[in-house]
């Protein structure tokens, strides 16, 4: 295990645009290895944009641009000659709505990343699929249904399937973009428990509009407002004694 507070990833003066519209202004956050970092803020504050800059998904939107740096193990992922596809293999992502591939079985969904990228890591595909599903806490629920379509299971299971799909590539960082917003409380609790266990192996960054979720799962919390980083600190400090008045008003619900 790495020590608790080494930096795995960080953004330095990160700004992002959609065409003329600036969505992020000079955001610098340092994400520690083996921890859960939560990004919170009201709708449209740029939290999803931020997380999408961390695996270079932002630039897939037409006319989207980025300035500043994002360091992964001290190397700028926006540096010259860096292949965004390779970055995405190291930085996995889970989306708001569960999106398993509808044409594939549960097994093939988990194996999809390895098959489609042509990556195999020594171990047999079966072992990787099994261990990924186990890490996603889904193995016991689907082990007899691996051939069924990925979309045949419940929403919460689909989301864990998507987590397993991301894990199968052995990423270093897992980004989650509001992973529970389409799920019921029980499924949400399972995903939250999963985040806590995932951080033992990975660095987790989660965007959430649910502040209680951030306070439950995150070790560090960043509050974004209008594309700017207002405050970033240990979660306990943010939720017990925030330094900024804006943070205070947002998390206590005294906003607007």
């Amino acid at each position, binding site marked *: 295990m790495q020590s608790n507070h080494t930096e795995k990833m960080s953004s330095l003066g990160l700004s992002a645009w959609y065409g003329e519209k600036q969505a992020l202004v000079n955001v610098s956050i340092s994400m520690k290895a083996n921890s859960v970092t939560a990004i919170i803020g009201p709708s449209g504050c740029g939290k999803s944009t931020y997380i999408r800059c961390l695996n270079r998904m932002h630039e897939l939107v037409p006319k989207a641009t980025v300035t500043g740096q994002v360091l992964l193990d001290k190397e700028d992922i926006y540096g010259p000659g860096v292949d965004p596809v390779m970055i995405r293999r190291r930085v996995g992502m889970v989306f708001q709505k569960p999106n398993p591939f509808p044409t594939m079985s549960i097994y093939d969904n988990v194996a999809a990343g390895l098959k489609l990228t042509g990556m195999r890591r020594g171990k047999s595909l079966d072992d990787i699929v099994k261990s990924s599903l186990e890490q996603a806490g889904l193995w016991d629920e689907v082990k007899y249904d691996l051939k069924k379509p990925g979309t045949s299971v419940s929403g919460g299971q689909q989301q864990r399937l998507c987590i397993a799909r991301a894990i199968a590539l052995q990423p270093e960082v897992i980004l989650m973009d509001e992973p529970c917003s389409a799920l019921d409380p029980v499924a949400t609790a399972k995903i939250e428990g999963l985040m806590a266990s995932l951080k033992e192996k990975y660095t987790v960054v989660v965007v959430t509009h649910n502040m*209680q979720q951030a306070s439950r799962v995150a070790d560090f919390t960043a509050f974004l407002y209008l594309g700017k980083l207002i405050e970033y600190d240990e979660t306990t400090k943010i939720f017990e004694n925030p330094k900024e008045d804006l943070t205070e008003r947002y998390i*206590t619900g*005294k906003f607007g």
Partner: protein
Amino acid sequence: MDKMPRLMDMGLEKLNSLLLDMATLSQQAVSASIEAYSRGGKGAEVKQMSTRLQSLHRQVSDLSMEMIARYQPVATDLRFLKACLEISYGFFRYGRYALDIAEVLDMFGDLSKCDRKFVVETAHKTQEMIRMSVEAFARRDVEMARKIPKMDDVVDESYRNNLKKMLEEKGNLKCSLSSTLILRYLERIADHATYIGESVEYISTGVEPPA
């Protein structure tokens, strides 16, 4: 940004008013018992006040727990609730010690022959501390809250000096015992006034006193 009412606000207001009630009542209880001591009464009304304070304290802690369960408060709200429990307990203890004093009076009977001047002086300092703690809470006045510990030192000193004096002098046992006990209770009240002051400071600054 105009302020929208939050569900939690109603509960917070209710808590605040419960605490203000407790503040008034506990002040009255301590005053009544000290009055009885200095003027030679029995402080029979203190018993009732103390019981009432206990029930209010229970209401405060129930309501606080309910609000934590229902609203998952954070930041100032969370700190206020945490402080409420401390402060409410402090007010409840004021009432308890007032009752203890009244019970001493009841048990010891007539104390008119004793020299009560020193105890009453200390009592007034303690009452001043109570007043300051109540005001600091009512107005969230951190400056005032910070003045309380200095007075606590004075009361502690009084208690210790009196105890030494009582050990050295061979006076009337009834007088020395009663004054020692009452000073002891006053010293405890002063401690709680200090805790309340610290809680008031915690609400505003989030800084907890060193353990």
